[in-house]
């Protein structure tokens, strides 16, 4: 019985991982905790829903949504965040909270607050693994997430622009002196981050119902996953998400569905008490 639980947990956990990856990457490269991450993803998910209803084939919908997310991310950075360059991290956080409210309002204005059914990207009866049924959507999620993670890491590790991004994270001034166009890097970071979030939204929507409050919940999970893994580590974000997803599923099955969120969150607080910098995070040493 435990294997399907773990696979189901891995599926929702990898969605949390995607959200956490976007958040952590943006935090590392841009120094901002993006509270609007979930709502930006929500907006794109609604866009995808609109396209699905218009009869577009699923792969095309994915492609268009990711493109829209990247444009949205880069646009928001250029129009809203860049004017605040040099302000305190707290005011940047509040800007993203303003964005959260505005986008949420906009989404409910355009698409209404009634819950919608987002059709599963892969329909059909559950696949059988031995004697255990596994949802096709879960398999799709796992596959797409693995693909996205491999793509992200090869972009960061093996391309010139990825190298420039990593350099900019380590030392923006030095990177600039060496000819890295820092504004392009920032724009790209936002584009990638929002695209990851949107991917999570589109993959997750069929597992629940599409409402304007859906992503708030996923965002909280993403935050938790990121913190659990260590907020300055990308592998940590992935590990944290998977750990959270599996824990939740096990708690829901063996203890109680009602209390699963509370127990999962309590467990995470315990982990943080033992390791305040997260599972894979590095301790930040302050110079006096």
């Amino acid at each position, binding site marked *: 019985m435990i294997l399907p639980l773990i696979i189901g947990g891995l599926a929702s956990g990898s969605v949390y991982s995607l959200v956490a990856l976007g958040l952590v990457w943006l935090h590392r490269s841009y120094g901002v905790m993006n509270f609007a991450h979930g709502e930006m993803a929500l907006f794109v998910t609604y866009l995808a829903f609109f396209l699905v209803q218009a009869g577009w084939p699923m792969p095309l919908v994915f492609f268009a949504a990711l493109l829209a997310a990247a444009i949205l991310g880069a646009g928001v950075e250029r129009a809203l965040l860049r004017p605040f360059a040099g302000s305190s991290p707290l005011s940047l956080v509040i800007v993203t909270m303003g964005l959260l409210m*505005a986008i949420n309002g906009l989404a409910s204005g355009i698409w209404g607050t009634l819950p919608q059914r987002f059709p599963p990207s892969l329909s059909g009866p559950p696949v059988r693994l031995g004697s255990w049924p596994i949802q096709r959507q879960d398999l799709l999620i796992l596959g797409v997430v693995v693909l996205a993670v491999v793509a992200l890491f090869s972009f960061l590790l093996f391309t010139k622009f990825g190298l420039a991004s990593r350099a900019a994270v380590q030392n923006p001034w030095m990177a600039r002196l060496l000819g890295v166009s820092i504004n392009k890097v920032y724009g790209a970071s936002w584009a990638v981050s929002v695209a990851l979030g949107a991917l999570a939204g589109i993959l997750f929507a069929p597992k629940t119902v599409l409402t304007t409050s859906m992503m708030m919940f996923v965002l909280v999970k993403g935050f938790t996953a*990121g913190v659990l893994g260590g907020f300055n580590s990308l592998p940590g974000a992935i590990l944290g998400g998977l750990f959270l997803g599996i824990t939740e599923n096990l708690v829901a099955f063996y203890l109680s569905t009602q209390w699963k969120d509370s127990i999962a969150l309590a467990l995470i607080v315990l982990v943080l008490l033992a390791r305040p910098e*997260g599972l894979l995070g590095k301790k930040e040493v302050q110079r006096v």
Partner: protein
Amino acid sequence: MKRYAPALFFLGLSVILPAVFGFSGYVLYLLGQVGINALAALGLNILMGLAGQVSLGHAGFLAIGAYTSVLLEMRLGWPFIPSLIVALAVCILSGLVLGLPALRLSGFYLAVVTMAFGLVITQVITNLDWLTGGPHGIRNIPAPKIGPWTLHSDLTVYYLILAFLVLGVLAYRNIQGSRTGRALQAVRDHEISAQAFGIHVAKYKLIAFVLSAAYAGLAGVLYAHQVRYINPNDFNLFLSLSYMAMIVIGGLGFASGALVGSLVFTVLPYFLTRLAWLTWVIQGAAIVAILRLAPFGLIGAWVRLRIRLAKPGLLVRRVIRKAIRGKKLYR
């Protein structure tokens, strides 16, 4: 006396304001909400503005305060004041409990732990439906009874809120200027230096958590008795986020910042539009705009403006300097 003139003016204004609007129940409700939000924002301002600790679980304390007092009154038949005191005590205890992990965590980690706290509180209240009515909430909360008087009318409840708000502001100002307040600000500005100066960092962080929890608990009790209906969703993450936005918009660390932020946040939506979604859009845009134009909040902008006005020379010099800079002659 001159120092207190603005404060007294605004106090007088808030006393007579209901009469100006002909004691309309709607205006009384709105003004009461401003006061309640201001109390909660004051509490968060101690924690974030003075001590520099981020909290996204502030609404959780409001929920604890509201539910404790209401349950004591409705299940056990306690009067208002004792249940208020017990509710505050419970809030203070939970502030201590939440403060303990905060001693080891900082920044975003703390933000997430406090957020988890807020979510867990609402979920606990929702799940304990035999006690709290679950997601349906609690209806028909009795009017607060103080000694021989029962505060039936909206007007008396408004004055009750106002009285607590005045107490809250006075306490805030006193804490801010006291040894404790200065220690909190030292912890905010540089934890290691503060420690080197002999400030017990852990102790003061706990004090900040406890104080902010007490303010929030008070606000929660008043909320329950003004609206007369509570449900767990009233105290969601959005509320915690709004408190944070309120003090940043009003001015971090200023007592008046919490008041102005609460006023802007509570009253503005009612003037803007009747469409809920448009309200959110405008409010979000307003936050970004205010931060862009006044980085230290509205009160910060006001203080800077007053300094400019008090020393006209500064303003003139600035204008000249700007003019020169325009002609590339500066420096």
